[in-house]
C-alpha cells in the first residue's frame, strides 16, 4: 500500500486527538461528580434542618436537585452531550413529557 505512511501518521494524530479529548472529558466528569456529591450533601442538609425550613419548601427543593442530578447523569456520564445523540435525547424528552402529563393528570383529576 502506497499510503501506509499517511495512514500511520493519521492513526497517530487520531490517538493524540482522542487522548486530549478524553482528558478534557475526564476533567468534566470529575467536576460533575464533585458537584453531584455536593448536591447530595445539600439534600441531606435540607432534611437535617427540617426544624428550621418548612417542609413545603424542602420537598420541591429536593425534587429540583434530583432533576439536576438526572441531567448531569444523562449528559456527562451517559454521554448524551456527544454528537449523534440528538434524536435519542429528543425521544427521551418526549417520553418524559408524556409520563409527566400522565402523572400530572392523575394527581389533579384522579387522586384529588
Amino acid at each position: 500500500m502506497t499510503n501506509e505512511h499517511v495512514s500511520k501518521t493519521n492513526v497517530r494524530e487520531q490517538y493524540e486527538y482522542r487522548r486530549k479529548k478524553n482528558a478534557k472529558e475526564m476533567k468534566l466528569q470529575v467536576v460533575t461528580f464533585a458537584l453531584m456529591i455536593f448536591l447530595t450533601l445539600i439534600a441531606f442538609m435540607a432534611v437535617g434542618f427540617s426544624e428550621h425550613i418548612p417542609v413545603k419548601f424542602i420537598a420541591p427543593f429536593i425534587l429540583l436537585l434530583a432533576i439536576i442530578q438526572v441531567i448531569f447523569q444523562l449528559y456527562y456520564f451517559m454521554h448524551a452531550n456527544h454528537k449523534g445523540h440528538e434524536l435519542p435525547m429528543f425521544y427521551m424528552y418526549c417520553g418524559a413529557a408524556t409520563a409527566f402529563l400522565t402523572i400530572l393528570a392523575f394527581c389533579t383529576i384522579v387522586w384529588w
Partner: protein
Amino acid sequence: MSSIAVKKGFGAILWEYLTTVDHKKIAHLYLMGGGFFFLVGGLEALLIRIQLLKPQNTFLSEQTFNEMFTMHGTTMIFLAAMPLLFAFMNAVVPLQIGARDVAFPFLNSLGFWLFFFGGVFLNLSWIFGSVPDAGWTSYATLSLASPGHGIDFYTLGLQISGFGTLISGINFLVTIINMRAPGMTFMRMPLFTWTTFIASTLILFAFPPLTVGIFFLMFDRLFGANFFDVAMGGNAVIWEHVFWIFGHPEVYILVLPAFGIFSEIIPTFSRKRLFGYSSMVFATVLIGFLGFMVWAHHMFTTGLGNVANAIFAVATMAIAVPTGIKIFNWLLTMWGGSIKISVPMLWSLGFIPTFVMGGVTGVMQGIAPLDYQLHDTYFIVAHFHYVILGGVVFAILAGLHFYWPKMWGTMLSEKIGYFTFVFFFIGFHLTFFIQHFLGLFGMPRRVATYLPGQGLELGNLISSIGAFMMAVGAISLVYNIIITVVKNKKVGNDPWGDGRTIEWAIPSPPPFYNFKQTPLVRGLDTYWIEKTEGKKELTPAEPLSDIHMPNNSFVPVVISFGLFVAAFGAMYNPLNQVGDGKSWALPMLIIGLLITFGSMLFRSIKDDHGYHIHKEDLMDDEGGESK
C-alpha cells in the same frame, strides 16, 4: 444465491413464509392476516346489523350481541386496521427511503407472529364459548364483573399482539432514522414515510400505557390483584384514563398512515407535486403531539369536573387546525392538476368529504356540554365510523389497489374496483349517515334491541340495508383479488405511469435485495425528478458490490407460540377469578414462558452472520423475480 424463477411446491412456499425476514414477504403476511380478520370483523358487523334490522328482534341474544360488538370493535382496530396498515408500511417504507430492508428484519418477523398468535388467541374465545363482552374499551367496572373467561381472552390476546405492534413501531423508527439512502434528508421523505414515522413514535409512547393497563386488568382477574376493585381500595377510573391515554393516540396511529397513503395517491393521479409539503409534515407532527393531551374527551361524563373538561375540550378542538391544513393541501394539490380518475384516486376523492364530515362531528363532541347529550348514543357510533371507516378503511382500500402491483406484480381489475367503490361508498353513507339522527333521537349504542313506535324503525332498516351494500362491495373486492391472482398478468416497474417516489423505479415485485445499488436522492419525488430529465432509472449512489443479507429464521414463530401457550396457562391458573383453575395450568404457563425465553436465548447465543449476494450474481440477475 441465484434468483432464477423456480416453481416451488406448496410446502416450500409455506416454509418460506413461516421463516421469512424479508419486509416484502412480511407485508404479504400482514395483508393476508389483516385481511382475514377484516372479513371476520365485517361478518360480526353484519350480524349486529341483522339483529338491529327490526325492533325487538331475537336474531341474537343480548349476551351474544354484547360479544358481537365487543369482538367487532376489538378485531377491527387491533387485528384488521393496524395489521393492514403495517402491511403497506412494510411493503412501501423501506423502498421509499431506498433501503434494502428494515433495520431489524428478525424483529419485523417477530412483530408479525406476535400479532398473529395474539389475534388467534383472542378469536379462540368463540370456540371456547366465553367471548369478551365488555366492549372494546373493556371498562373495569364492567369487565371485572364479567363471568367466564371472555375478558381474559381479551387481556391475554391483546397483550401478545400489543407486544408485536410495539416491536414493529420501534423497528420503523430505527429504520427511518438510520437507513435512508444518501441524499434522503428528513424534508425529502415521501409523506407516507413521514406519517409512518410519526405513527411509530405514537406507538412507542402509547402502547406502554396499554400494556400496563392490560397487565392491571389481567392481574385483577387472574391473580387476585385489586387495582380496579373499589371495595379493596382500588380505583376503577384509572382503567379509563390508562386506556384512553393509549386509546386516543391509537386513532392517530391508524389515521396518520392513512393520510400518508392519500398524500401519495393524490399527487400521483393529479400529476402535480403535493401542495404545501412542509406544512403537511408540520401538521402531521402537530397532530401526533396534540394527540397525547386530549384523551379525557372520551370521559367527559365520567365526572372529572368543569376545569378538566374545559381544558380537554379546547385541546380537542385544536386538533381540527392541523387536520384542516391537510384537507386544504389535498384540495390544492388537485387544483390545476391533470387529474386521472383511477380506483385509488376515486377512494381518495370519496375520502375527503367523508372525513370532513367525521371531523366536524368530532368537534361537536369536543364541546363538553353537548357531549353529555351525545355520549353513548348512535351519534358517537356514526362519528367514529365516519373517521375510521371513511379515513382508515378507505385508505386501506385505496392503498390496496394502488400498491397491489408493487406488492404482487399484478394489477387489480379497474372495472371491478369501480363496482367495489360504488357499492361500498354508497353502502357506507347509507349505514352511518342515518345513525347521526338515530343518536339524536336517543338510540343508545351497545344495546341489543329497541322498542317499536319510537321513530327508530326506518333509520335502522336503512342502516342495515347499507351494511349489506358494503358487504356486496367487500365480496366484489375478494372476487377481484381471486381473478387477479388466477390471471397472474405481470406488470412493469411503474404500472400507474405517474409514480413519483423511489418504489416505482424498481421492478414489481422488487427483487429480494430491493436495490442492486443504493439510489441517490436528489430531491422530493426522486423518481419524478429522474423522469423529468428523461431517465428511466435512479441515479446510483454507490458502485455495484456484494450485498449482505440476513438468513431466514423460524425462531419468531417459536417465541410467539411460547407466549400463546403461556396465555392458556395464565388463564386457567388456580388463582383466577372465575374459579375454574386447573392443576395443569401452572406447569403450562411455565413451559410456555420457557419456550419463549429459551428460543430468545437460542437466538442470542447462536451466531448468525447472514450471507452475501455476490457482485457477479447481481450482474447476471435481471432482477424481476424475487427469491
